[in-house]
């Protein structure tokens, strides 16, 4: 192992730089050091102008989210040695999907704006407030426990693929917060929340890319909470939109033949009554047909009955 590690760091000072650039530093490498230790070493000994946020250095304050070699991390809990297992140098950039203020510091307003949109507090029965605590079973506590561990670091937003292309998307952290509130056994506004979250930019706009689950430094697993919100919405039978239809018909079609019917699913999802939607899909369908991508007869597995029997048993056990 080399005695020094190269840190290649994104630099940008709006007062002096017309555009961002990368600057390399050599950081003496010692065992057990984190990427944050490396940055502190640079700032203290080599370059006092290097700018970044940090505080707790123990992965709890959520200050130090950055992009390291392509993915977002808390640098305080990232061992340099861990990075070097996969890369030759440590490349550090500010979080994506946020405006850069200076060097590795980004403007977090976007994060809080999204948070604001999901009513990020518990709405409970304010009429009958008990003298002591409201009761909550350990099982109900467990439902919201992991989602409550969010430290608002923004790392998930930085890597969110939907947000990258659709600024309207509420994003993983806010949706996880929404789940934590909606799923709380003490809440009284679950349905309103679910309805609100089914609007544009809400739970049905998540691309299910698992980036947020992968990068979240806590136990939130934001996408899993989004999927749970979807499940809650379907169960409550609250909305009928492309998202809900997609899931419902998907399941139905699988149980129908064992193999998902790819011709019928889009039609059912868009809705046969949505003429405009249907017409919109027509050219693509035609192109596919011409290329032999649309089988005329839908295949099916032998034991379709068996699937239905299992589905029935699952349904019964509820």
């Amino acid at each position, binding site marked *: 192992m080399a005695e020094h590690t190269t840190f290649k760091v994104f630099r940008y*000072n*709006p*007062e*002096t730089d017309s555009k961002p650039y990368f600057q390399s530093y050599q950081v003496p490498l010692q065992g*057990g050091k*984190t990427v944050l230790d490396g940055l502190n070493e640079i*700032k*203290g*000994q080599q*370059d*006092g*102008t290097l*700018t*970044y*946020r*940090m*505080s*707790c*250095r*123990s*992965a*709890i*304050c*959520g*200050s130090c989210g950055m992009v390291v070699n392509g993915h977002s991390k808390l640098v305080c*809990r990232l*061992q340099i040695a861990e990075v070097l297992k996969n890369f030759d140098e440590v490349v550090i950039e500010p979080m994506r999907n946020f405006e850069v*203020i*200076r060097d590795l*510091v980004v403007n*977090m307003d976007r994060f809080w704006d999204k*948070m*604001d949109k999901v009513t*990020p*507090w*518990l709405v*409970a029965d304010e009429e009958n*407030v008990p*003298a*002591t*605590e*409201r*009761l*909550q*079973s*350990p099982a*109900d*506590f467990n439902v*919201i*426990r992991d989602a*409550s*561990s*969010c*430290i*608002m670091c923004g790392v998930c937003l930085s890597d969110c693929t939907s947000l990258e292309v659709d600024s309207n998307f509420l994003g993983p952290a806010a949706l996880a917060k929404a789940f*934590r*509130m909606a799923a*709380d056994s*003490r809440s009284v506004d679950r349905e309103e929340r679910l309805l609100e979250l089914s609007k544009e930019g809400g739970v049905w706009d998540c691309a299910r890319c698992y980036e947020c689950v992968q990068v979240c430094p806590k*136990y939130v697993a934001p996408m899993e909470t989004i999927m749970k919100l979807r499940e809650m919405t379907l169960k409550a039978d609250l909305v009928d939109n492309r998202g809900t239809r997609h899931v419902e018909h998907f399941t139905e079609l699988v149980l129908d033949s064992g193999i998902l019917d790819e011709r019928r699913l889009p039609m059912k999802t868009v809705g046969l009554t949505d003429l405009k939607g249907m017409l919109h899909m027509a050219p693509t369908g035609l192109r596919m047909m011409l290329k032999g991508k649309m089988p005329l007869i839908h295949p099916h597995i032998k034991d379709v009955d068996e699937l239905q029997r299992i589905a029935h048993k699952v349904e019964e056990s509820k």
Partner: protein
Amino acid sequence: MRVHDVVVVGSGLAGMEAALRASQDGELDVAIVSKVFPTRSHSGAAQGGIACAIGNQDPEDNWEVHMFDTVKGGDYLVDQDAAELMCKKAPEIIYELEHMGLVFNRLPDGRMAQRSFGGHSKPRACFAADWTGHAILHTLFEIVLKRKVKVYSEWYVTSLIVRDHTCHGVVAYDIMRGALEVFKARAVIFCTGGYGRAYKITSNAHANTGDGLSIAYRAGIPLEDMEFVQFHPTGLYGSGILLTEGARGEGAYLLNNDGERFMKKYAPERMELGPRDIVARAEQQEIDEGRGINGKTCVNVDIRHLGKERIMERLPQVRDLAWDFLGLDCFSECIPIQPTAHYSMGGIPVNLDCECVIDDKGTKIDGFYAAGECSCVSVHGANRLGTNSLLEACAMGAIAGTSAAKYAKSAPDLSLPDDADVEAKREIDWLLNARGSVKIADLGDELQRTMMDDCGVFRTEAQLKRQYDVVKNLQQRFQSIGLSDRSKTFNTELLGALELSHLLDFAEVIVLGALNRTESRGGHSRKDHPKRDDANWLKHTLAYKDVDGPRFAYKPVTITRFQPQERKY
């Protein structure tokens, strides 16, 4: 200039509780000013729990037992009227938090679960896994959002405007824009947290530089009991990052190099559950006498016997910390630990209404309040019990908010002194133009190392004298520092220098306070004066800033219910 009725400095548990109380009836314009975003405050790092004698786990528990434990734990330097107030107020505070939406572990019957904690004779720590502080911090922040309390995030308060024993507001520096502004307020509440960063091995965040203390000190306000610094027994070896005391609460063992549960020599009854100061000293003694693990400055904490399931359920963060920061698997390996500077018992002297009082006659600074770790009321005395400081931050924060609001409603509207921000401007200009050759990182490092060595778990006269010289020398060298960053945008180097200057100011107070106090009590342990000396030292230290260093005075301890006894566990 910005004008508010009440300005709260700090947005940890104390700050947010204060702001929520002060803004409760909607009559006052309340603002929070904080150098970090509220949820980044160090309160979020608190792991183990918050004390509250609601008796969910043990119906025998009540506020009086809690108070006794607190007084005894504090080695009788506790002001007992304050401890009584806090312990009585605890249930109200906890239930209120629960109603706000707090996510806490539960008993099978749905009430909040409670667990044991060092120094408490009953299981009375309410908790959320091992992120209790985080749970409370975020719940309070949710309500701050709900109430739309104005928050100035990433604004660094540089000075307090006090004239003729009256507070007029603060001066603060907007980190994002690099602009200095005056905040005029009828009441100011300091909730600026602790000063662990004076030490090399510390559980505290980089932001815990005790700014609020020296800001007050520079404004003519004395600091109380600064020599009492708590060392937590379970800091990760090398960094001091905290391993929750919850681990010991759940049954962890402490082992020396011989694999011996050494606490049997120091606290035979309570063993690992003895109070922090005793456990930390036991560890230091083991280390000093050569029984550290492989001769290093650490001992082992062992939780393997708890089993994976229990660890995952109750101590998930312990597993993560061991893995992320030491690369250890706590299911199968011991975790090396050492005493780590953790909590500052000392602070800005306040009375039961959180009003700042500057002497033993009850002289106040009108309109200036303090709560939480930066204050000294003193509920912790010479040593704080685990889980009592979250309670203090919440309970006293709430009280500060209420009393500041009451004052602000009737206070006269005073005109600001013309020179309100002159000193702050001078300080920042000087730093931005500091072109010397001394690096602030080097000074900080030297301060922290030497404080650890010579003003740490154990102290002697010789060490403290040496350390006083070191601090003086560092203060001098600070005059020759050089900064390279002259930008207005997010100048963190400038902030680092401001913070260092604060550390250097109050480190002197810690060292001299410790040198004067020729006894051992709670967190202050003099090897050359190993006994508690109630005849001479059952009193609080007050340190005033004078031309060439602190001037010391003392004030009596309030004793109501419990007469001092020997402290045994």
